[in-house]
């Protein structure tokens, strides 16, 4: 049963690659025989799966690691080798005669960046996290990346309208969460609640959410975790690709994307592009004026193997334009209070529009990356990567006259990233890695805004050294790691007065990361893991130097140059029980943060020519966040699966003895999925599911901590259908989703626009993907 399940899992993984079968011409009497061995120890791998895509069937290796597939024709076959604890291997064979193969599988643990498949529940692994299923990634092609991420437990979404969003992992986001794209920590303007993550989710084929223990590789900013996105290695000799087109009724969103890839001999390429265009979203009662967004993304990936060398060139660009809800473009405190009191927001209409007017944001992010891997021996390799990123962000406010088309904020950030990593593994499941990293960032306010910048120009230089060790012994796996970052920040703040003066300041921080993990196979069906991460994070630029009014936030933000590094200690555990029909995963955690940096509302107001504004200053206090994620799966029958997920957390400011703001409320989600293994008519791989998501009200907040009390809880019911209309060597996959079926009116505590307007109502989403 489990094996069948695995095979299904693998086959679904491969859907994105291809199905290629030619007709049987002559006799079909060839055989592929072979042996599977561990690449490191040379030991035969018994119980490994060899899956032949063209036959939609597989065999299992015997005690000697041997397998045989008979009655094969003279054609091309795609084989997939997999074994628990090993990286999967694909092979394309043009069969002209019978073949004898020796296949070596790379032990999974050997590559820390290797994919972790969630269903390998038995596997021991040192990271707490979740790999998002490819089918889920496919379903979310028209959505924001944050929405895809929030399907995992412990992750919610912080929004500034529909188009601007970012994930919150275990209560933390922004500067405490790293987004990694193709091995490069993304360097964008990630500080405000109104800055989304600049990654187009529609192109990715691997997305992983790491909750802690990831800081070693991604730096102290991965205090809460990391979102790791990547494009898989190009494996297949045939030209493969996919084209997806879709429509969302709410926002009348249109989106389209394509991908092409091929591996020819030692050279491989992949090219991809995507486009999205959403107009104004509508709540059950009115349209949200100026809430649309558009974005365009494209990229190219080239890979080349040359003996012991592996080279990769990767480049991508994302250009996006986001409207900011017109009703939220208010001024001072009086305005905010007037806007809050309204039943229906200002400028609410019954007319749909695709127009994006000020206030809006236009951002472009480009990445250029070069990677070189050199295999020193069978057990060790050296990898160096260099990445250059340019981020340009323009924010347009509702200004007068000619300034209407002049950005009020225009930032250009250049980032260089260099990494040199040495990895070694040895027999007996020992692994070692060590590396150096250099980060250099230069952030400039592009002249011409005719206003003083919110954030001064700065340069950041951050060399780092890290070392990690992992060992598996019988039923125990432990990992230890350390990292040191030297953080040199030079800033050029403008001291405001009758005459403005530019000053140069320097901040030096030494930041240390220590991380330890112990995982035990406590019994055949249970796993226990305990992680402890100690991280110190230097205060970021905006925490030190913000000075001004943030776009439509109706508050004046001021940095605090005295801020010291944040010291965080996170203790988390993961407990898994899995049986034939049910599995349960529980992740409790306690996160203690000394010097937790946050925006504190001041008693005084800042008086300006535009009236009084609430004044917020960055302060630091000791804080604690504790919570638990629950994930329970149950197989009711062969075709019906049920799932329940629950997240709960509570954050406290220990010094001021009050709750932390912007903490997600509890969330309970159920889903029921019907996935028959047989065809229904001509439909294959059909999955029909019904979801019920309940968001509880965030009660844990004092009345004086927000302008209004957090919104009430709500329940959303969604349904989705996914099926293969054609399933030969080409596939045509249809996805239909109905979100918020009952078109309920609600507001979300994690959406900054909750003061002004309701959340979008029902949406019917249809998407057709052609994969070859």
């Amino acid at each position: 049963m489990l094996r069948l399940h695995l095979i299904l899992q693998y086959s679904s993984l491969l859907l994105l690659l291809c199905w290629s079968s030619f007709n049987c011409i002559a006799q079909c009497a060839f055989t592929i025989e072979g042996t599977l061995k561990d690449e490191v120890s040379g030991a035969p791998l018994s119980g490994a799966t060899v899956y032949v895509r063209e036959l939609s069937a597989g065999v299992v290796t015997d005690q000697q690691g041997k397998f045989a597939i008979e009655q094969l024709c003279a054609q091309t076959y795609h084989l997939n080798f997999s074994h628990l604890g090993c990286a999967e291997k694909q092979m394309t064979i043009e069969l002209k005669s019978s073949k004898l193969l020796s296949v070596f599988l790379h032990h999974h643990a050997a590559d820390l960046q290797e994919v972790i498949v969630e269903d390998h529940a038995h596997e021991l692994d040192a990271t707490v996290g979740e790999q998002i299923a490819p089918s889920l990634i496919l379903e979310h092609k028209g959505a924001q990346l944050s929405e895809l991420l929030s399907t995992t437990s412990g992750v919610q979404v912080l929004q500034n309208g529909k188009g601007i969003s970012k994930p919150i992992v275990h209560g933390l986001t922004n500067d405490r969460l790293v987004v990694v794209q193709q091995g490069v920590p993304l360097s964008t303007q990630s500080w405000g609640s109104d800055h989304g993550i600049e990654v187009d989710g529609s192109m990715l084929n691997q997305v992983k959410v790491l909750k802690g223990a990831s800081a070693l590789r991604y730096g102290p900013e991965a205090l809460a975790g990391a979102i790791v996105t990547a494009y898989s290695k190009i494996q297949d000799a045939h030209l493969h690709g996919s084209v997806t087109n879709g429509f969302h009724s709410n926002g009348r969103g249109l989106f389209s994307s394509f991908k092409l890839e091929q591996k020819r001999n030692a050279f491989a390429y992949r090219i991809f592009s995507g486009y999205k265009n959403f107009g104004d979203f509508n709540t059950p009662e009115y349209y949200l004026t100026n809430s649309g967004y558009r974005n365009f993304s494209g990229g190219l990936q080239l890979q080349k193997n040359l003996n012991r060398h592996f080279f990769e060139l990767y480049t991508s660009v994302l250009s996006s334009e986001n409207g900011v809800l017109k009703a939220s473009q208010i001024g001072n405190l009086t305005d905010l209070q007037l806007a809050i009191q309204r039943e229906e927001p200002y400028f609410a209409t019954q007319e749909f529009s695709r127009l994006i007017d000020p206030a809006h944001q236009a951002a472009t992010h480009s990445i250029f990356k070069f990677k070189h891997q050199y295999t020193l021996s069978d057990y060790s390799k050296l990898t160096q990567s260099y990445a250059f990123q340019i981020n340009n962000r323009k924010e347009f406010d509702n200004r007068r006259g000619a300034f209407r088309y002049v950005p009020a904020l225009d930032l250009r950030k250049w980032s260089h990233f260099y990494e040199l990593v040495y990895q070694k593994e040895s027999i007996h499941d020992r692994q070692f890695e060590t590396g150096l990293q250099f980060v250099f960032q230069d952030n400039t306010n592009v002249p011409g805004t005719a206003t003083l910048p919110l954030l001064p120009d700065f340069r950041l230089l951050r060399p780092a050294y890290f070392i990690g060790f992992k060992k598996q012994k019988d039923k125990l796996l432990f990992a230890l790691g350390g990292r040191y970052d030297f953080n040199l920040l030079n800033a050029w703040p403008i001291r405001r007065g009758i005459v403005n003066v530019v000053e140069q300041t320097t901040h030096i921080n030494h930041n240390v990361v220590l991380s330890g993990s112990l995982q035990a196979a406590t019994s055949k069906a249970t796993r226990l893991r305990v992680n402890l991460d100690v991280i110190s994070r230097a205060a970021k630029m905006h925490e030190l130097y913000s000075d001004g009014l943030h776009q439509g936030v109706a508050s004046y933000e001021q940095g605090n140059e005295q801020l010291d590094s944040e010291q965080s200690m996170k203790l988390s555990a993961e407990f898994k029980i899995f049986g034939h029909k049910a599995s349960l995963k529980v992740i409790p955690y306690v996160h203690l943060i000394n010097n937790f940096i946050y925006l504190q509302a001041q008693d005084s107001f800042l008086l300006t020519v535009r009236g009084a504004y609430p004044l917020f200053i960055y302060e630091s206090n000791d804080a604690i966040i504790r919570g638990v994620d629950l994930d329970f799966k149950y197989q009711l029958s062969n075709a019906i699966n049920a799932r329940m997920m629950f997240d709960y957390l509570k954050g406290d400011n220990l010094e001021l003895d009050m709750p932390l703001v912007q903490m997600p409320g509890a969330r309970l989600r159920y889903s029921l999925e019907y996935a028959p293994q047989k065809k229904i008519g001509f439909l294959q791989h059909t999955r029909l599911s019904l979801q019920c998501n309940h968001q509880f009200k965030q009660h844990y907040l004092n009345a004086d901590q927000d302008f209004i009390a957090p919104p009430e809880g709500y329940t959303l019911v969604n349904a989705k259908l996914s099926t293969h209309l054609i399933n030969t060597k080409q596939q045509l996959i249809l996805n239909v989703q109905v979100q918020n079926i009952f078109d309920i009116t609600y507001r979300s505590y994690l959406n900054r626009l909750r003061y002004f307007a309701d959340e979008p109502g029902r949406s019917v989403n249809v998407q057709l993907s052609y994969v070859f």
Partner: protein
Amino acid sequence: MKKAHLTVMIFALYISSCKPKEVVVENQQEFITTVIMTFTDNSTGVEKQFTYKDLDGDGGEPANVSVEPLMANRTYQTQITLLNEGVSPTENINEEILAEDEEHQFFFLSTSSNLSFTYADQDEDGNPLGLSTLFTTGAADSGSLTAILRHEPDKNAEGVAGGMIDNAGGAIDVEVAFDFTIQ
């Protein structure tokens, strides 16, 4: 080879981080530093001024507010002048407002019923603008007058043409309060 690579890199980074940045301090061109309300007595022609001045803009030094007392039971022709004195030469913002008069409107909120106003000008569409107004004083009193300039209000919303701000919406350009006395 790799060592040389690294050394060059570190060196380049070191150099680039040492060269100070040339920061351009922007002229805050659209900024309003000064709001002057000039009350001209209809009967005597005597001028009184309410002035709000914040030359360094948001933050920094607090604004300077000065108010001259008004006389009881009079009608005042009132003119508002908005200036940006942060740039040289001083910029008259009134011209910008007049150029986009249908996108702007002033509102005046008084805590005292002894100070009331009516609009004395119109935009291109025939809706009130509020750079020119007529203020009427009643008996001797004191209170606070808030002058508000909205950008892109909904001028057709209920009550807005009569000076009611509640349904106006739009972004705020000016909101200053003057503590006045009527003698």
